């Protein structure tokens, strides 16, 4: 949780808004894939803040909600391709659990596109870079995620008196 709290503030003025994306990446594949993208000098937007997790199967839906509560405009969970899980079956569970959670969010009125799931292997640096560019563009198109932020509007730019 500490990691998502370190997401830096997006600028407050609306004209300068750019999306905040929180990504939960599997340590064994997507995290390495993102690393590879960096080492390969693939350029992709810097809106993404990465939280390393041991497995996509470890991602509890509460992580996703907490990221939204903390101001994320889009949340991504990325793990190994089916069959490649370091723990044999973690991503098979993630493949049931996370889309179900996305459907639940959609049912209460949250745009399901704000919660993305992907499989990116350690070798797919290019896929990673392209996907981040795509979802950043998507997040820009969707605009600021106000549903949760509107609930916590007092947190924004608060001026304390002493």
């Amino acid at each position, binding site marked *: 949780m500490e990691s998502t*709290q*370190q*997401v830096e*503030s997006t600028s407050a003025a609306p004209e300068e808004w750019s999306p905040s994306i929180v990504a939960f990446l599997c340590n064994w594949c997507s995290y390495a894939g993102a690393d590879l993208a960096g080492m390969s000098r693939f350029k992709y937007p810097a809106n993404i803040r990465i939280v390393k997790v041991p497995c996509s199967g470890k991602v509890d839906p509460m992580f996703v909600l907490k990221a939204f*509560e*903390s*101001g994320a405009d889009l949340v991504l969970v990325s793990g190994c391709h089916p069959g490649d899980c370091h723990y044999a079956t973690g991503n098979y569970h993630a493949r049931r659990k996370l889309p179900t959670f996305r459907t639940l969010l959609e049912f209460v009125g949250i745009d399901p596109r704000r919660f993305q799931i992907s499989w990116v292997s350690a070798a797919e640096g290019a896929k990673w870079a392209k996907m981040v560019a795509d979802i950043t563009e998507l997040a820009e198109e969707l605009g600021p995620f106000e549903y949760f932020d509107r609930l*916590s509007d*007092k*947190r*924004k730019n*608060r001026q*304390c*008196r*002493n």
Partner: protein
Amino acid sequence: MKEPEQKLVVPNGWLEALVRKLRVQGTRVLAPVERDGAVDFREINSADEMAANYVNTRVPLKEILFPRTETILEFDQPSGGDVVFSGVEANAAPTIVIGARPCDLSAIGVLDTVFNWDYHDTFYGQRRANTTFVGVACREADGNCFCGSVAGGAGENEGSDVFVRPTADGALLEIMTERGKKLAQSIDDAAPAAGKEEPLPVAATEERFDVEKIKGWLDDHFDDDFWLDVSLKCLGCGACSYLCPTCHCFDIVDESDWRGGERRRNWDCCSFALFTLHTSGHNPRPDQQSRCRNRLMHKFKYFVERFGRRACVGCGRCIRVCGAGQNIVNVLIDITRAEAATSGSA
């Protein structure tokens, strides 16, 4: 029943005119409004919005003075160990509450005691000072109302600033307080009562048990199988307490993220298993029977011993909302019977 400071007679239509006038002045007016089948206090602009028939509101009057959640402090956490924090003003706009029921109004007396008996709670106090209550005698009660057994009944005027007794062609207004007098100045066509006005009959809430017998039994039966029998079906939720007009327990929590946060005061409930749980794992009230016992004892024994009044006003909400079908009236009837049996045999 208290003797009013002043009695006024008003014709039909007085309420509509009063609300109109208050709204023109910009005063916030709360009244029972029906939405999706539930009646609750909401802001109104016109008396037409008021619910026509209601026994009582779903959420008790207490929420106007003691909201379910409120910010009591705000803080920012810039990097480093420093924290900037400040108090907040209570949200206490001048408010006129119309259509409150006698049971809920007498419950305000209980809250007044709690929030002022020692330290004076500023959040409660500011709202209390800025709120004027217009109570209305109940013409209808349902099977769960038991104010006649524990409090003054459907025509009790205590706790109101202005108490309304509907008549065939208007209402008899009992002006109870200085705040009430001030509000009365905004009421048009009011004439001093001649003393022969006949208010419409109030709802009958007959005495279902002898409330005076309860404390005597509680005094002697802290350890008793009765509490297990009463508590087994209790689910341990907070519905009864949250919707009780006198229950006032609260929690204080901090909520924050990287941008800062706030300290909040939220309703809490002694039926929750974690309410008294120490971090060490020790729990002074470890099971539902001790928690149910505490809730009842608090209302009918501890509060009486401490502050000289009961903390139950007979609104019946706990019966209406209990998912397990717990009925406090039946419990109290059992207690009074047991007390009668012991005092009879002694």
